[in-house]
C-alpha cells in the first residue's frame, strides 16, 4: 500500500471501524508518518463530538468512592520501585522521582542483554536481535516487561518490548529446547478475559528465543504476558504448561 491508501483509511480508523488487519497495517504506517498521524488526531476530535449525542447518565456514588479509594491506596503505597515502572514510558519518566527507578531498571536490562550476548559472543544473530530489541524499547511511548520462568521454565527469563502501535519483540533466555512438534507460544491476558494468542517460536540450542509479533490493541494498555508450550504452529487457546509469565499488569 502507498501513502494515499493509508490516508483513505484514516476516517474509518478515527471511528475504530477498520478490520483488525487494516488497523495493524495503518498503525505501522502512522508510526512513521506525521501527516497521517496529525490528520487522524483532527478526525478523532470530530468523532469525539458524537459522544454528546448519548443521553447523559449519572453513575452511582460508589463509582467515585471506589476510584478515589484506589487512588489513595496508590498514593499511600511505599516509595519502592514498583515492577510496573518497567512498563512505563522510560523516557517520559526522566526527571520525576520514579525516573531513577526507570533508569536503573532500563540500564539493568541493557546490561543483562549485553551479558547475555557475551555468553553467546559467537552468535552475531543474537547481537543483531539485541540491537533490534533496543530500538523497539527506545521508541517514544515504548514499554518493557519482564517475564520470569515458572515451574518447568524455572531459570528461564524473557523480556518483551513493545511500542504504542503494538509492534512487539521478545527475547527469551535459558528456555528448555522445545520437543519435536512443539513450540513456545506467547499469550496476552487482559483482565479476566480469555488469553489472546500470539505467535510461536522455538529457542536455539542455547535456549535463546526471539519473537516478533503484533500485539492486539486490547493488550496495549494493561496485560499480563505468558509463554506456554504448545503444538507447533500455535493454538487459539492455551493447552500446555506455562514456562514464563509476567507478574504485574502492564
Amino acid at each position, binding site marked *: 500500500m502507498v501513502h494515499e491508501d493509508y490516508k483513505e483509511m484514516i476516517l474509518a480508523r478515527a471511528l475504530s471501524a477498520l478490520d483488525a488487519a487494516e488497523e495493524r497495517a495503518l498503525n505501522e504506517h502512522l508510526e512513521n508518518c506525521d501527516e497521517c498521524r496529525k490528520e487522524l488526531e483532527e478526525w478523532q476530535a470530530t468523532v469525539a463530538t458524537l459522544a454528546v449525542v448519548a443521553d447523559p447518565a449519572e*453513575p452511582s456514588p460508589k463509582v467515585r468512592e471506589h476510584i478515589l479509594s484506589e487512588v489513595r491506596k496508590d498514593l499511600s503505597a511505599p516509595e519502592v520501585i514498583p515492577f510496573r515502572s518497567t512498563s512505563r514510558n522510560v523516557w517520559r519518566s526522566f526527571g520525576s522521582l520514579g525516573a531513577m527507578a526507570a533508569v536503573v531498571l532500563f540500564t539493568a536490562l541493557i546490561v543483562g542483554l549485553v551479558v547475555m550476548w557475551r555468553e553467546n559472543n559467537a552468535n552475531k544473530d543474537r547481537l543483531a536481535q539485541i540491537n533490534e530489541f533496543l530500538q523497539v524499547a527506545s521508541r517514544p511511548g515504548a514499554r518493557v516487561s519482564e517475564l520470569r520462568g515458572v515451574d518447568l521454565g524455572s531459570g528461564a527469563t524473557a523480556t518483551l518490548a513493545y511500542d504504542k502501535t503494538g509492534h512487539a519483540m521478545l527475547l527469551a533466555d535459558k528456555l528448555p529446547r522445545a520437543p519435536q512438534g512443539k513450540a513456545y507460544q506467547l499469550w496476552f491476558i487482559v483482565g479476566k478475559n480469555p488469553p489472546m494468542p500470539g505467535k510461536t517460536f522455538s529457542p536455539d540450542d542455547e535456549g535463546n528465543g526471539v519473537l516478533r509479533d503484533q500485539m492486539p490493541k486490547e493488550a496495549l494498555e494493561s496485560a499480563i504476558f505468558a509463554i506456554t508450550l504448545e503444538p507447533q504452529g500455535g493454538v487459539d487457546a492455551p493447552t500446555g504448561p506455562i514456562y514464563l509469565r509476567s507478574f504485574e499488569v502492564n
Partner: protein
Amino acid sequence: MELLKAIAARDEAALAQLYDRYRVILFGLLMRILNNREEAEDVLQEVFLQVWRKADDFDEERGRPFTWLVTLGRSRGIDRLRTLASRERVAEAGAREAVEEVSDAASDAFKSEQRGLVNKALAQLPDEQKSPLMLAYFDGLTQSEIATRLGAPLGTVKTRMRTGLMNLRELLAGQGESFGF
C-alpha cells in the same frame, strides 16, 4: 488541561474534580455503548484509574482533554462490548436499562447546548450517511460488519461513512471551542 497536569503530578483532588466534570457525559456514552449499568460503571472506573496512571501521556498539542477522555472512554467501552459479545453476554437489543435522573448540577456540567449542536448537525445528514456513523461509534461495528448489517456493498458503506463524517465536520465547523468543556 490544568487538571490533567495536576493529576499527572499525583493530585487526588484534581482527579476528583475531573471525575465530577466528565462523569455524566462519559457514563452516558458508556451506557449507550454497553446498555448495562454494572458493566458501564466498571468501565468508567477503569477509565478514570487509567487517567490517574496515564495523565502524563496527555499531549496538549495533540488535542483537547475532552477528545482525549472521550476517545479513551469510548475505546474502553467498545473493547468491553466486543468482549461481552464474544461471550454472548451482550444485553438484549432494545431493552435499554433505566438510568438514574441526572442532577441539575450534572446537567449543567453536561452543557446541553453542545448536544443540541451535534444533534442538529446529525439531523442534516441523510440516513444513509448517519446510520453507518452511529453503528460504528456506538455499536463498535467495523466497516465490514456495517456492510453486512445494512446489506450494502462494503465500498458503498466506506463512501457513505467518509462523506458523512466530512459533512459532520463541515456542519460543526466553528463550534470546536464549544467542545473544550
